[in-house]
């Protein structure tokens, strides 16, 4: 309290001191403290079950490694991949590194700090995402506590996507876009001209820029009309502002053509959506949300909470916020990977509903010293709990087939191997392209030639699975030790187990060798 008094009644002979104290009071204000707590939560949300360490989710995603492979290739060759060289099943087909910007950032982080560099990047991105979500929620409700509680509730939901992939950058850009649009609605219009620049970076980082274009179009369309329908509100923009928004939107639509691949990169999301039939059911994140999983349960609880809150104490919402929320809910329900989209668009709505129940921030009652101590504790905690190089390496070995890769390196004959899809990226990074993979997480290059379909037949040991080995001329097989396919191969005289550790097993085709 003494500090607060000092802020309110500064010594008359020290004007500089007054300014410094005011700045410090702002720096260590309650909202900043809430931001620090959310940062700690975001860092904690990067912990993976199989690797209970901060940034452990680095190992929860097989795609991380092929993104890194592409990033390293671009840094090394100063060219963008255009032809597939890492797999033998899609060898020579045209490829687009549609997330090359994010991949280069990942490669730079890896170059700077190896696994620790990647871990730091993941934690940094998660923290940035959560803090932006907090700010976006605050912009709408102007209640830091409500915004922080909303962000805290949504962090577990969004954390399902806190993996080391460029998509986390993409959704961070989406948040920035929504923040610019919200500020624009509130009269801060000039900063909107930064959006074309953002879109230029975004389209070269992750294909989610389509969501940004959708948001721009939605805000523009909702600004054409003015009405109040129950709690739904639309406010017509003055003609000049409408024109401004339209020009910015058009500029954004134009700059997304500026990529190493021209307009093909911008067209990628649409091509993917049209040709994704196999992907939707073959891969979990494109499947529907699992409501019995923790983040699914949280998602359901938040929706029900918003419904109850709105019924019991109706609040007004801009029409565009409601449309975004409905779209986010529908997409997240249909595709688990979009829970992060839901988290972004529901943050301001949830915060607005919560702000009716939670007290507003009163700077005069703040405790900057206590806040400073707690912020410092959070920062120290983040540093102290950051995993060591050894710990990360050990987790990598527990999760990916490091030992098997060493074996393959010593046996050049294993050059046409079937592999577990989630390990494909790791193999690309470790021994590609000299040892080409059967399949990895780049779904798009395996969709059109039927490789995904064949992969599923093989891993599920469906009829004709072994015939498919012959079709592809496969002479080895790297799979998980517990995979059903292993049982099928171990009972087959054509196959011989040549390597086994706690995680993986390699089978060699005897018939091929004898020839």
């Amino acid at each position, binding site marked *: 309290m003494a500090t607060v008094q000092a802020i309110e009644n500064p010594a008359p002979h020290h004007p500089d001191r007054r300014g410094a104290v005011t700045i410090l009071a702002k720096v260590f204000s309650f909202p900043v403290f809430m931001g620090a707590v959310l940062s700690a939560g975001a860092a904690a949300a990067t912990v993976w079950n199989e690797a209970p360490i901060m940034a452990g989710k680095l190992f929860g995603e097989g795609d991380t490694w092929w993104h890194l492979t592409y990033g390293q290739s671009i840094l090394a060759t100063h060219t963008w991949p255009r032809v597939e060289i890492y797999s033998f099943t899609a060898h020579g087909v045209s490829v687009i590194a549609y997330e090359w910007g994010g991949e280069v950032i990942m490669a730079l982080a890896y170059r700077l700090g190896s696994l620790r560099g990647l871990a730091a990047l993941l934690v940094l991105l998660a923290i940035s995402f959560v803090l932006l979500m907090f700010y976006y929620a605050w912009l709408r409700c102007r209640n830091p506590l409500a915004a922080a509680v909303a962000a805290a509730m949504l962090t577990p939901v969004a954390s399902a996507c806190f993996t080391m992939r460029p998509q986390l950058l993409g959704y961070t850009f989406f948040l920035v876009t929504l923040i610019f649009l919200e500020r624009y609605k509130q009269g801060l219009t000039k900063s909107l001209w930064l959006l074309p620049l953002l879109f230029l970076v975004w389209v070269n980082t992750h294909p989610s820029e389509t969501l940004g274009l959708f948001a721009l179009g939605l805000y523009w369309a909702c600004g054409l009309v003015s009405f109040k329908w*129950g709690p739904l509100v639309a406010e017509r923009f003055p003609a000049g502002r409408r024109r401004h928004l339209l020009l910015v939107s058009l500029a954004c639509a134009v700059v997304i053509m500026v990529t190493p691949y021209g307009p093909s990169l911008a067209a990628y999301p649409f091509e993917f959506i049209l040709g994704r039939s196999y992907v939707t059911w073959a891969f979990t994140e494109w499947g*529907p949300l699992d*409501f*019995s999983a923790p983040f699914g349960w949280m998602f359901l609880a938040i929706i029900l909470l918003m*419904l*109850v809150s709105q019924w019991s104490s109706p609040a007004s919402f801009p029409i565009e916020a409601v449309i975004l929320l409905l779209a986010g*809910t529908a997409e997240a329900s*249909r595709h688990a990977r979009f829970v992060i989209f839901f988290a972004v668009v529901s943050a301001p709505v949830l915060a607005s509903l919560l702000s009716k129940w939670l007290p507003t921030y009163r700077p005069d009652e703040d405790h900057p010293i206590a806040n400073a101590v707690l912020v410092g504790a959070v920062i120290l905690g983040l540093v102290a709990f950051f995993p060591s190089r050894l710990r990360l390496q050990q987790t990598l070995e527990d999760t990916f087939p490091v030992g098997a890769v060493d074996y393959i390196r010593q046996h050049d004959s294993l050059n046409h191997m079937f592999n577990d899809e989630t390990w494909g990226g790791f193999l690309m990074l470790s021994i590609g392209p000299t040892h080409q993979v059967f399949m990895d997480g780049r779904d798009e290059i395996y969709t059109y030639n039927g490789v995904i379909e064949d992969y599923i037949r093989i891993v599920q040991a469906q009829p004709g*699975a072994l015939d498919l080995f012959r079709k592809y001329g496969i002479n080895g097989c790297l799979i998980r030790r517990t995979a059903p396919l292993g049982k099928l191969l171990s009972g087959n005289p054509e196959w011989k187990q040549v390597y086994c550790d706690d995680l993986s097993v390699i089978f060699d085709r005897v018939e091929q060798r004898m020839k």
Partner: protein
Amino acid sequence: MHHATDAAPPGVTPPKGGAAGGLLGALRTAFSFPVMLVAWIFLVVVRLAERNLPDPDIWWHLRNVQYLFAHHQLPNVDTYSFTVAGQPWMNHEWLAEIPYYLAWRAFGLEGIEILMLVLLESIFLLLVYLSYQRSHHIKASILACWFAVALGTVNFGPRTVLFGYLYMVILLIILERFRARGGAVLWWLPPLFCLWINTHGSWSLGMLIFGLFIGCGMVQGQWGNLVAQRWAPQDLRKLVIVYITAGASLFANPYGYKLVAYPVIYASRLPLNITFTQEWITVDFHSPRGKVALVLLATLFTSALVSRFQWRLTDLAFILFAFYCGLTYDRFLFLAGVIAAPIVAEMATFVPPYRPEIDKRWLNAAIIFGILAFVTYRFPTPDDLEEQVAQEYPADILPFLKANQFPGRTLNYYNWGGFLEWNAPQIKTFVDTRVDIFEYAGVFGDYLKVHALVDPEGVLDQYHIQYVLFPTQEPVIRMLEGSSNWKPIFKDPLTTMLERVEPQPTGASPQGSN
């Protein structure tokens, strides 16, 4: 709480000149537009359900009643399998099995099909009635019922749970009638619950709904669009007494307190069943049913925002409960549909009301007769039903099983256990879909080790399995066919039976005996 008086139904505009009486009036009602709409529901339910006869549970249900009629007592221990033979087992759905068995005795598979359709149609007809009771708007009621039909498809089949949902609708009708008019109607609930507990474990959901109904009337107030009205003291007293009586009536069953505790034990002690059984998975929003659930959710969302619809606290509690259950477990979407229908009907009163004066009864009659003729013409023959069964169950192997002796133990496919127990009782099964008894004993876990090829040889040796009877397409068949220790003794496109050719391992302790 004051009982509402039944106001003039806003969903129906009475015809000018008053209603016609007698036979003509009955005919006018029978061939009215609402009846024609209900006939469409009837048709769609028949079409959606007619291919669902081969439910894996129905066979052991029939066997249970066969045992009951032969021995005049319920089976208290397992006698069908060799893995859990002699272990205590509670037939918690015994009363629902009897009508299915009697239907089968009377008309064979057609009897089971007819009973299933009668149950389904009764549920949805009563649901239309319940929705109308709430909304007084027949078109809105039928619209809401379409949602319920779409969500209910998850349980379309000859299943005992249909009795449970029938009782659920009756419970809701009684509660709604009590809320609107009071009176003695509540006293139907103790016998209903007594019937329910002997029929299906869903009585626990009924008690929960009844409890929520009472609990939400303990407070009074209005919060935005949410309204709660406190019970009048005499009503509350009556509700509590009936609740306690209904609770006491649950103990009137052949297994006493054990059957009352069964739903809790089922939910807490069967993790494998919850994880691996198809009907316990979460809702798939890519499926048509999932999309309907999503539309219903979006409707509620939108109504929360734009509608001035006044929500009763009871409705809110019901709908939250129903959606939590329905979205978490696909099988509870039926429950979600049943509970949501009357509320959706009340919200959908923006639909233009039915106007009898512009009704074209000759057209309605033609459509109704057309639907009835179509259903009768397309009703599956016994051969059709046998074919349905043969497409999913190993019907073609039955003569082979009857003609030969199989001295060793047989590992069977999970979904085929009941079918074998009913059609080839001389074969003692490894597992069937009475998952509780098998999971308690660890047998279901061992079965999954074989099915998922985690440790098939270990389990086959542990149980001294001599024969394996599985679908031809299953990976375990291909694995064993590749081994020199097993040879096929029967094979068709659906079914493969393998026999062990090596001597059985010794030393492992088998469970039960064949």
